[in-house]
């Protein structure tokens, strides 16, 4: 028998050394493609003014400084609408949208996954189909609907559509399908628990990774939401939009705008770092069976 290859004293099957090396090379190349622009953003944000407009431009920063971040905060303080207002807008819509979505979607997902009622399969198929087209398709008609319901230019125009997000419901339903055993629910029902109680007390604690994923996905979308076609009033616009206005200030704000980009991207990245294992666990049951 041929000698088995080992890695760290463990036998590896079906893996040639050449293949391993090739994969490492490919990974490094692709990784450089992904990471270098991110590194460049951070470099830009740390460059003092003379280095930003150096010729020839250098990739790396020589004398790192936090001045750009200070400039950014000064610009924020000078803005016509106080920046705290933009921050409040983003926090308020994120929290309202996220928790409404979590509650409505998980309740619906529970019923679809764990109660066998006529129409459950069809309803889920309908929801799943909506994953197949992008929201831009519905934007114009949504605008007409929202103006009919007098929601345009209110917080509701951001919050309520977030409640109906499809991906969250899909992930929650799939996760409940594979992680909440029917027998446990059955015995709770036999003990006289109502469906609402079974859902809230028994099923929900079993799907913590899924609701964490829902919260994070929903929050990220709302955090990254820039200007919305449904909002006109300056006082109701998002933090991201306001930061974008600073970035749009042209050459003299290049440093502050790089600092703003770094500030904006750090939040979702940190959130992902903290929640990665839960998100991956949720994605484990995301597959489509038919």
């Amino acid at each position, binding site marked *: 028998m041929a000698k088995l290859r080992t890695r760290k004293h463990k036998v590896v099957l079906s893996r040639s050394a050449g293949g391993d090396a090739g994969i490492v090379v490919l990974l490094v190349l692709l990784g450089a493609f992904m990471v270098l622009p991110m590194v460049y953003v951070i470099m830009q944000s740390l460059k003092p003014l003379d280095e930003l407009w150096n010729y020839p431009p250098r990739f790396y920063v020589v004398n790192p400084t936090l001045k750009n971040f200070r400039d950014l905060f000064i610009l924020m303080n000078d803005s016509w609408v106080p920046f705290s207002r933009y921050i409040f807008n983003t926090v308020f819509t994120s929290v309202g949208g996220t928790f409404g979505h979590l509650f409505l979607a998980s309740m619906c997902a529970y019923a679809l996954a764990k109660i066998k009622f006529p129409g459950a399969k069809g309803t889920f198929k309908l929801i799943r189909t909506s994953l197949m087209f992008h929201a*831009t398709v519905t934007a114009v008609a949504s605008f007409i609907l929202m103006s009919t319901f007098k929601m345009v230019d209110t917080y509701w125009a951001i919050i309520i559509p977030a409640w109906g997000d499809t991906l969250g419901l899909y992930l929650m339903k799939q996760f409940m399908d594979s992680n909440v055993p029917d027998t446990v629910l059955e015995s709770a029902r036999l003990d006289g628990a109502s469906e609402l109680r079974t859902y809230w007390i028994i099923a929900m604690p079993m799907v913590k990774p899924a609701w964490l994923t829902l919260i994070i996905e929903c929050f990220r979308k709302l955090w990254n939401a820039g200007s919305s076609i449904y909002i006109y009033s300056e006082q109701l616009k998002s933090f991201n939009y306001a930061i974008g206005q600073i970035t749009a200030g042209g050459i003299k704000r290049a440093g502050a705008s790089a600092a703003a980009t770094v500030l904006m991207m750090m939040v979702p990245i940190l959130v992902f770092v903290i929640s990665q294992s839960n998100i991956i666990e949720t994605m484990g049951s*995301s597959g*489509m069976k038919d």
Partner: protein
Amino acid sequence: MAKTSAEYQAVARKDMTYRQWIWKEMKRNWFAYVMIAPYMLIFSMFTIVPVALSMVISFTDFNMLQMPNIVWFENYINLFFADDIFLIACKNTLIFSAVVGPASYLMAFLIAWFINELGPRIRSVVTLIFYAPSISGQVYLIWATLFDADAYGWVNATLLEIGFIDEPIAWFQDADYVMPLCIVVALWTSLGTTFLAFIAGLQGIDRAQYEAGAVDGVKNRWQELWYITLPNMKPQLMFGAIMAITNAFGFGGVVTALAGFPSVDYAAHTIMHHLDDYGGQRYEIGYSSAIAVILFLIMIGANGLVRKMLSKVGT
């Protein structure tokens, strides 16, 4: 008082017509309808009704101001026979999504597969590196800085330095470069949900299958991939494909931010931009609804096609 277990039994379909049985089952499970009602209400209002409404409006000349008239297929006829820019947009959308969709799908799978055998700690670091661009909001604007039009742009400066070009190229204002560059940037931001689903799917495969495979004559990683990994991953492959396709059609914002609107010579003008032009700026709602309906049909069609192809994996 606790209910007896009989009340929780599914209704047996004896001595009943199908309709009577469905009705009994619906009454027995009435609470399920209460539970799905709030979500379904919102979902209908912002997804189903808008799609249906777009289809209806696309047959009218609605413009938000006057009472709409029914014009039947006039909007569609105009789109295909009188609107040259729409045809350019169609061509660009097809090129864009035909490249970005499969390429991002393949890239997501390959990277997920490559990093699958790394140790848990290093794997989560590498995952973060590849996933970060897709969640970082507008960080893709850095590409506009890298590919700045004058010699202060890092790419131009570097190319001038090594003598590859004689004068700086205005990358995003040049009809030859704008589309490929937007595709590269779109790919850069595309390793999102699909990528995570693949990582999770690969982690979920039972190790024992690989050992059994090796005993049964699997010689190398490619055979292992084709005979064991891919068939096991089929549900994730389906889900990932849907997410990748939908995203590939949704990069209009990236293109607008980088190439401007309208892009030079409409070289990166997609159906999404055309829709935004007529719906969001000119308020020709009837016409833009027709565009939305066409886009909707293209997306659903592309998904149907890909699902059919994927159902053949591993058979």
